[in-house]
């Protein structure tokens, strides 16, 4: 089979598998958010934690719960790293230094999973399991919970209640993430991912040298790392590491896991708002970006522009032989479009435009399909902006799903779309203005700049992948990127929940012939255009000085 045909086939099978899961999984998540019944295990958990499972929260209370849970998580994870040398299974590693522990704690709680550390030489097994992997589950669940609240804003009327955060969190973990993780984690083990509690196993190699084979609970973390669009690898090499991603099948499976929940959530949305076509429209926009992105990265990598790739004869630097161009490009596009940030190949060595697309993917705001939960709420906020402009053009006060988009709604939507670019641009500008921090770039010229731009884009958009050439384990970078991740995660959540509250209060307007239809191809095209133009205009100057200057 030719590599081209194989490449098409892997994408087609992937699309087929995602399509097959779209309805059942989306409906299942919708059920989680609407069912009044609690499982026995959930009731027990509520008793244990003192949660009233039947309470319904106003949006500020929902927000307070999100923030409290995340704050407690950051502190807990920070402390865990700082005392890891006193804990079991530390593998003899010392306590993580303060700025790195802060960066890592923030990184995992914000679902970014930026890694300024090298897993195999920094984190003991207990921190990996009880600290990092736990956040892989719950930070994903927080994102999904917040989008549930936003959808409720659309579906409810004349109420100030948007749901119960603790119930949403618990249900997502117990009924969605955990069962999938157990089953698919075992599939990964069967396919070769390691799952043990060993430290280093020293072996004598064939030529008589020695090699330390690492061990650890890798598969259990790998599966939720992809499923929760987290991306923090057990090892520094992330999903390029053969123990995390042993072969072509696991690679495909991991891409599938990355996309599974973000792709199914539009169905949840359509289902909950009572019009599945709304879900298909949102999904279509996501699909346009994903397909275009996969095609572009694959094309640019196959073309292998760039002096080094030309010298080598192919863009194989930083890519694994078992994956090749097509499977690497597919992974790269999917991971940067979903806020996952796991990598099976190193974007820093991608061709100028191939790497540029991965940056642009993140700049889209992680919405196509985006991180679990955060992708859909980001897309819905942009849909609100698109509907506002388009709604004016049909001569009515714009309304989306029957909810009017007035000054209050536009305030929150505008602040949302303002936040992340502000963090990215200010952070990048600041870093470029500081000669000391600029010196941390491994590469020079436009590519060096791209590394800095990538770092802040990744952090503020909670992606977590990197043009890893830059040395970011300094206190300045750890702190700056930590703050970028915090602001990039929680400030938008504040606006999303405020928007949810504002929408929930409204009485829906009935749809008529005069209402802008938001389920037709025209709207799909419009939303795609709005996303492209808003993002493109914001970042064009920066991109021009980075990947575009490098590639032209």
């Amino acid at each position, binding site marked *: 089979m030719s590599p081209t045909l194989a490449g098409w086939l892997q994408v087609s099978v992937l699309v087929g598998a995602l399509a097959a899961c779209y309805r059942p999984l989306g409906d299942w998540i919708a059920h989680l958010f609407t069912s009044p019944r609690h499982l026995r295990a959930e009731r027990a958990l509520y008793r244990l934690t003192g949660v009233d499972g039947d309470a319904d929260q106003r949006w500020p209370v929902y927000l307070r719960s999100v923030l409290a849970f995340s704050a407690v998580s950051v502190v807990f994870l920070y402390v865990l790293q700082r005392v890891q040398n006193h804990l079991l299974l530390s593998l003899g590693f010392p306590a993580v230094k303060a700025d790195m522990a802060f960066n890592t704690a923030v990184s995992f709680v914000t679902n970014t999973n930026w890694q300024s550390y090298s897993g195999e030489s920094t984190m003991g097994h207990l921190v990996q399991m009880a600290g990092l992997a736990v956040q892989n589950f719950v930070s994903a669940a927080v994102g999904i919970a917040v989008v549930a609240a936003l959808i409720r804003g659309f579906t409810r009327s004349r109420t100030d209640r948007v749901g119960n955060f603790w119930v949403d969190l618990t249900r997502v973990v117990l009924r969605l993430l955990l069962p999938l993780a157990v089953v698919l984690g075992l599939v990964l083990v069967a396919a070769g991912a390691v799952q043990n509690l060993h430290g280093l196993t020293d072996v004598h190699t064939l030529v008589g040298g020695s090699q330390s084979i690492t061990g650890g609970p890798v598969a259990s973390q790998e599966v939720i790392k992809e499923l929760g669009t987290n991306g923090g690898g057990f090892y520094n090499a992330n999903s390029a590491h053969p123990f995390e991603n042993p072969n072509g099948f696991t690679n495909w499976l991991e891409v599938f896991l990355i996309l599974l929940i973000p792709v199914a959530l539009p169905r949840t949305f359509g289902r909950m708002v009572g019009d599945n076509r709304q879900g298909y429209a949102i999904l279509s926009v996501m699909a346009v970006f994903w397909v275009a992105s996969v095609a572009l990265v694959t094309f640019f990598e196959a073309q292998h522009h760039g002096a080094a790739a030309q010298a080598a004869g192919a863009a194989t630097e930083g890519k694994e032989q078992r994956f090749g161009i097509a499977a690497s490009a597919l992974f790269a596009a999917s991971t940067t479009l979903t806020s996952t940030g796991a990598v099976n190949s190193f974007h820093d060595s991608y061709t100028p435009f191939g790497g540029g697309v991965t940056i642009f993917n993140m700049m889209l705001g992680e919405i196509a399909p985006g991180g679990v939960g955060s992708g859909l709420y980001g897309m819905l906020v942009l849909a609100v902006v698109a509907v506002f402009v*388009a709604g004016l*053009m049909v001569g009515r006060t714009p309304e989306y799903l029957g909810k009017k988009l007035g000054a209050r709604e536009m305030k929150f939507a505008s602040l949302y779309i303002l936040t992340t670019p502000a963090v990215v641009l200010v952070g990048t500008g600041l870093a470029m203005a500081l000669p000391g921090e600029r010196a941390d770039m491994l590469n020079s010229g436009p590519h060096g700049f791209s590394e800095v731009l990538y770092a802040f884009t990744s952090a503020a958009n909670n992606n977590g992948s990197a043009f890893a050439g830059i040395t970011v384990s300094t206190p300045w970078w750890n702190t700056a990127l930590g703050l970028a991740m915090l602001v990039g995660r929680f400030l938008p959540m504040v606006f999303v929940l405020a928007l949810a509250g504002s929408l929930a209060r409204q009485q829906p307007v009935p749809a008529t012939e005069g209402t802008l239809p938001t389920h037709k191809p025209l709207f799909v095209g419009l939303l795609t255009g709005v996303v492209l133009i808003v993002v493109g205009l914001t*970042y064009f*100057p920066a991109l021009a*000085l980075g990947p*575009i*200057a490098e590639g032209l």
Partner: protein
Amino acid sequence: MPSPTPTEAGPAGAATLGPVPQPAGTPGRDSGPHRVSGGLLEPGQLLAALPGALRKLDPRVMVRNPVMFVVEVGSVLTTGSAVADPSVFSWSIAAWLWLTVVFANLAEAVAEGRGKAQADTLRRTRTDTTARRLVDWAPGRTGAAEEEVSATALRLGDTVVVEAGQTIPGDGDVVEGVASVDESAITGESAPVIRESGGDRSAVTGGTKVLSDRIVVRITSEPGKTFIDRMIALVEGAARQKTPNEIALNILLASLTVVFLLAVVTLQPMAAYAGAPQTLVVLTALTVALIPTTIGALLSAIGIAGMDRLVQRNVLAMSGRAVEAAGDVNTLLLDKTGTITLGNRQAAEFLPAAGTATGELADAAQLSSLADETPEGRSVVVLAKEKYGLRARQQGELGHAVWVPFTAQTRMSGVDLDEDGTVRSVRKGAAGAVSAWVSDNGGTVGADVGELVERISASGGTPLVVASREGDAAPRVLGVIHLKDVVKHGIRERFEELRRMGIRTVMITGDNPLTARAIAEEAGVDDFLAEATPEDKMALIKQEQAGGKLVAMTGDGTNDAPALAQADVGVAMNTGTMAAKEAGNMVDLDSNPTKLIEIVEIGKQLLITRGALTTFSIANDVAKYFAIIPAMFAAVYPGLDRLNVMQLHSPQSAITSAIVFNALIIVVLIPLALRGVRYRPSSAASLLRRNLWVYGLGGLVLPFAGIKLIDLVVQFVPGLR
């Protein structure tokens, strides 16, 4: 005028106060494709507005418009650096940035200027009048003492007397007397109207003139807060507040401005790293090119012009909010009479009694109606002519005729003809009245006639009975005239249009359900409310609103006031009571209920104009990037010169061209902003598709051509090569 879009001219000279009101009996306009249009922009208006535009440069005024405020700050900065480091380039950028701000202010000033013209017309009528205040006036009491005071000294509750030839000193209700009043100052309609105490015709407006008789008026408004004062404030824009939608759009524009501002500010360290630090002038130029100046400049002009377009149609909106709400209306409550049907019933058929020929009946009906000047009576004459070829005889051509005119008391009309000594009496009128006349004179009304009367009544029509009497013989009933409502020509098509726009029409009528249904079906309304009382109307509005719908209605009577207040868009007829005018949020000076449909269209057009120009403005940025970014960086990264797809001459000419385009496009679009974009009633989807093509794609493509053209000129300017 170069314009980026297919636009069209409105009727010329519409800046005067009000077109001629539509004659009753035709729907506002013909039913073919039509549009809402405004006045033309004359070059003179631009010049006249210039001083106002310059006055608006005051930063305290500018700060209310964040987008243009940023441009003004940029203008100051570039001027500063041009002074410090003079060059043709920096001075031309500085100059064009100032022009950008002035053009924006010009747009607003022109829009306001049109309002001011209206206001001046109104103000001329408000010359200080002297009021004859009555001391201790009480109903029925004559000879109350009079004192002369200035109109401005009048207080709420004062009573004044006004006689023929005098101007009414303030808004009030007639409490005594009846008079004909010239209200042309407000309505532009020269025909006098009758104002009398009690009932729904008691309201008078200050500044209007009594033509005949004497009335006593109780003042209902404080000085300075009269209807005319409010109208002046409204059209001048003094009372203008940003509407909810305008605020929402402003928020979006402000946040885009902040994003672009950040993009440019943070660009400098990146540029410095690349080895191409930029001058303040270039960075400012980039900022101004990116922030949505086009819509930012025209936004308030669009809003003012929207109100203005209503004024040109003789509708006064009490707030911009009401105009926007009009665009959102889901349900129109339309009064049957005057809106859907012609004001009066018309004869549709002659139904003879047993033993009478139809021709005889028609002849008698015509004869008996010649003295009936009511529209119903005239319609009988018309029917007789059209259907039976009976020429309308003049009253004078029949000798020895004694005419019996129609009165509300007798409810009959007719004629007594002396034909060779025998007096032939013909009577036509309400069934009860004519039957009484027949039986009083010894005749009987046949059962078949009773049946006809009942059948017509049941079908919703009005039966008129025709009888005649030869000499002293017993009168004989000849037959029945069927009067029925006539639906206005073309109204059905209008309702279909409304349906396409997603608007539901509900007919309100006092008729019984049977009649109402028949008319509703004929007119093609979606629903009807029969035997409607004001309470029913109110309940219907509340019910619609509970479903999240916005309701528009017209009304004139005092008992309409609660419903007018409850409706999202309440259009009070100017002929109506002061209570109705106070309760509604619009007043139609022509008192033409059909205009509600036009009001809805104007509301929609206002929003569409905003959306279209926003889209256009943002789409413009793409081309500006392709002009400015290569100009900034091609020196250090030669590859970026490939982005110079327009092949602009030099970095300086490229940046200058982008800024010049950015400024000129505002001027080019001022007429569009004032007139509003073309609006054809159609579904949301097709409106969106059309506007996206025109303003989205147009906005994307046009500046490439525009900037290139400007560059072709600018490249010859020394210092910009």
